[in-house]
């Protein structure tokens, strides 16, 4: 029985609960502008919503959504329904950003947000090793030891991700960012993640501590290099990619698989924003405060600067019975 429940029972003798105040949370109908952009994105996507209470709708601007870089108009975004999300209408544009640029988004309804592009992190090298478990292919682990160089003389905030990559022949295809793979981080104190479902990792109050967006700071290695030690489960992250099967079946040049290691430098506000999103999964004594940097409305805009390092798996890593034949 939960200890906290016990304590509450003991002290609840004679207790009474009632309401102090009631606040209607409709608020006003406000426009929200959100964008988590990256220097390396093929297209930059901005999401517009509006609503009150929990009734949110995609918002179609009656004017223009423009992007300025260092005060110069760089692009005008166009609606692209392909990228729409639940509650959100997507506007896309192409523009090149680099470290130090001041990027400003403006919406003709009076919203605007300005951010500065952070310095890109430096990946010095990545050392890999493969631990194969013949009796259980799913638990084979591909280790990545990524040596980073911290941007000196400033406080830095980073995120670390690994995307699955699939090759047809020798060509890389399908590199959308939503193919993030699960990381094995038990050996990496900066990213250590307690995964759900494991009683051993319960905290005292039956809660689960996560760092699912793999955020970390440079507090422990400021101005120096650091080796991030993580692993992935290659079999699991490649499951279902029929391109590889197709190539093997038809005797084409073998398809292949690999990963992109992505280290992103983010602003402190972005770090807090992502932490807030993650924290809202858990119960807290008080609501989590989300950073907002859109003036004239609500929302959060950021630009990350990522360094990407692509690694193709050796062919021997893909077992012959991978395709289930």
């Amino acid at each position, binding site marked *: 029985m939960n200890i906290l429940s016990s304590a509450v029972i003991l*002290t609840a003798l004679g207790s009474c609960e009632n309401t102090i105040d009631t606040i209607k949370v409709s608020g006003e109908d406000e426009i929200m502008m959100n964008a988590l952009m990256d220097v390396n994105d093929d297209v930059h996507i901005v999401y517009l919503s509006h609503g009150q209470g929990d*009734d949110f709708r995609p918002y179609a601007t009656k004017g223009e959504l423009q992007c300025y870089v260092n005060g110069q108009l760089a692009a005008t975004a166009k609606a692209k329904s392909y990228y729409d999300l639940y509650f959100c209408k997507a506007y896309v544009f192409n523009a090149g950003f680099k470290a130090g640029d001041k990027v400003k988004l403006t919406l003709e309804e009076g919203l605007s947000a300005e951010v500065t592009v952070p310095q890109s992190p430096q990946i010095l090298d990545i050392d890999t090793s493969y631990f194969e478990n013949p009796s259980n292919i799913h638990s084979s682990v591909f280790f990545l030891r990524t040596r980073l160089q911290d941007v000196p003389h400033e406080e830095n905030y980073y995120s670390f991700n690994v995307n699955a990559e699939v090759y047809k022949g020798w060509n890389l295809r399908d590199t959308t960012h939503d193919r993030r793979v699960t990381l094995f981080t038990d050996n990496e104190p900066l990213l250590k993640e307690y995964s759900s479902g494991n009683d051993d990792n319960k905290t005292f109050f039956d809660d689960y501590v996560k760092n699912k967006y793999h955020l970390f700071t440079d*507090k422990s290695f400021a101005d120096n290099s650091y080796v991030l030690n993580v692993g992935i489960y290659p079999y699991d992250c490649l499951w279902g990619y029929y391109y590889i099967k197709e190539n093997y079946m038809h005797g084409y040049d073998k398809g292949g698989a690999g990963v992109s290691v992505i280290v992103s430098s983010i602003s*402190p506000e972005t770090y807090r*924003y*992502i932490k807030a999103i993650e924290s809202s999964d*858990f119960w807290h*004594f008080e609501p989590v405060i989300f950073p907002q940097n859109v003036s004239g409305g609500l929302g959060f805009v950021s630009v990350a600067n990522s360094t990407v390092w692509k690694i193709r798996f050796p062919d021997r890593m893909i077992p012959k019975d991978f395709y289930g034949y």
Partner: protein
Amino acid sequence: MRLKALHSAILINIFMFSLVAAGQNSRKFTVSGYVTDIESGESLIGAGVLSGGEAKTGVSTNEFGWYNVSLREGRTTIEYHYVGYEPKTIAFDLNKDTVINVTLSPSTTLSEAVVVARNNAGIRSTNMSALDVPISQVIKSPTLFGESDIIKFLQMLPGVQGGMEGTTGIHVRGGSQDENLVMLDGIPIYNIDHVLGIFSVFTPEAVKKVTFYKGAFPARYGGRISSIVDVRTNDGNLKETHGVVSVGMLTSRVHVEGPLKQDKTSFSLSFRGMHTLFYQPFIKLAMKDEAKANFYFYDANAKFSHKFDDRNRLYLGVYNGWDKLTVDDLYDEGSGSEGTFSKSADKYRIGWGNTIAAMRLNHIFSSTLFSNTTVAFNNYRMSIENKYNNSYGTQYINDYSYKYKSGITDGSARMDFEWTPNSSNSVRFGVEYTFHTFKPETSSFTNKAVEGGTVQTDSTYNELDGRKLRGHEASVFIEDDIFIGERLSFNPGLHYTAFYTDGKFYNSLQPRLSARMDLGKGYAVKAAYSRMAQYVHLLTSSDISLPTDLWVPITKNIKPVIGDHYSIGAYYSGLKGWEFSLEGYYKKTKNIVEYQDGATVMGTSANWYDKVSMGEGRSYGAEIFVQKTLGKTTGFVSYTLSKSDRIFRDGMVNNGRWYPYKYDRRHNLVVSVFHKFSDRVDVAGNFVFTTGGTTTVPTRQIVAIAPDGTSTYDDYVPYKNNYRLPCSHRLNLGVNLHKQKRHGERIWNFSIYNVYNAMNPNLVYSDTDYNAEDGNVTTNTIRIKKITLLPFMPSISYTFKF
């Protein structure tokens, strides 16, 4: 550079000359000794020692009842005073340094203690915002469950606020709970709470004196920012054995003290424990039939004092207190096939508490030099244990256990000196070293499964680091009570601390200064400045005192908290039996530590330093305090107007903006009255009114985009602590019925906490109701809910003093 050195040399020579000259205008001799209770031999702390004919000057006894005063040669009259005792006057010819040990007799009539300055605390003291807490008033004040509590009494004083309603947290002039140095006979106590803060660890019967500083801190104190609570316990009756037995609603207390060897060696023993059995049936009703739960706490104090001779005294003291919660959840399915049966047992144990052991040696070098040497051991620990056993007959057995521990251990040594070179100076100086060992968290799991006689799993997993953090803390201090004539007094001082931990060395020089000017006709003004440094933090996330709150040290990245405290005040004591004070203060702190927004604070705090931010705080206010100290009706009125806010400029809390502190309660009013009808009946009442503190509630919801490209919506909060809670108020009443019996005195106490059942909030939280559509818009409602744990609470207790 040479000119600066010359100026310093000149100043030093002037100072030395003045010291010498002050003693050489005429021959002076020192009178010193101890002031004790004639019946028990107990030393009297803060007793007044006056001399000087019409224009009296005086000193007061120190924490061990010792005094010394420098007087001119010739016919001398000295008066000894102490509240509740008959004054004594001694006249003699002073022609050499003289030792006079004085005993005072308890008085049957109430009289005002006449002390002119030189107290450590009080309206006539040079120290500002310092108060001697009257234990008799603490005992008689009506409280929750009839349990007298020193800390809850402090909450009624100006500038002091409680945390959650009914708990023992104190927030002094905008400071947080960990900024209070609470000491038991000079040794800090890390956790002063029992039962999640409902009670404190102090048993009133064991306490002799409490001195409370909330503003100007004498240089002999250091290590915390906001207040000092100096609790001194009884040494033990040197004449006869006496005691007190008290049975209340929740706890019972026993106190016994007496001589082991008449006038030489004494003991003082106290024990308080909770009546868990009284609540056992209610707990069983609330839980499954097989489940059992028990909670208890206890405090045990033991002190031994030995007087070697007039110059040497030894004290040995031990304190141990513990809270324990046990929950046993047993399941027995009964017989299955072939007589086998399935059963399981899930047992929780959680406990927390303090252990303190100290040895003190007083030595009088001469009539002008007194020393106290203390060696102490101090430990706070908390442990959680869970054992789960599941079996199916003898075929399948699974044992799982989880252990979690955290704590702090200090070993310390300290030497204090009191030197009175002349009648105008009273110098204290000393040195202290503390070795801290912090064990923030250690946890381990073991799991063993046996099936069909074969071990399937047998593993041990150490989850948390368990790395001990060590800190070396060394301090030196010097302070001087300087009296210039009869009207002007200063207490300048310097406290220096060096702290080494985590490969980093920190040090702080902390100047202190208090000044008092007597304007005549009972009027006086005071001013003070203090700089304080704090090298430990308490990580807490809730309103209640949880055992999982962790004490952590500063690190190479988390710096010591520094506080600068300015205060000024005006006082009037010209009306006999009344004291009036008006004080104003401004306090600013830097490097205060708080969890970042959204930091997961429940459970493990591995890498806690990555989850906190350092920021600044500021608080200011005005306090009015009116006391009536004489007559059958006594009491006080306390009013505080205050404001307190904070900022964390790294943006990790409230996006780097100023926000009100959680316990920023603008107005605080307390009226406390005690009336003695006769020797058999007295009554007491408290009325407390405070405007609400703050909490954080969402005002709407917003759309958010996650890094994985999905959209979601979440609560939106404009700023931290954006909602002001309603006022809290309550009335407590109590009556004591005394009767002399053959072997002692019996007292019945009937109290009512919260007489008119004000539903004050003990816990506040927000909850969202998702309503149906209103037109085309779904309108949610946020309800600010409170849980009242302490409504109308009558209590009764029986006490027998023998």
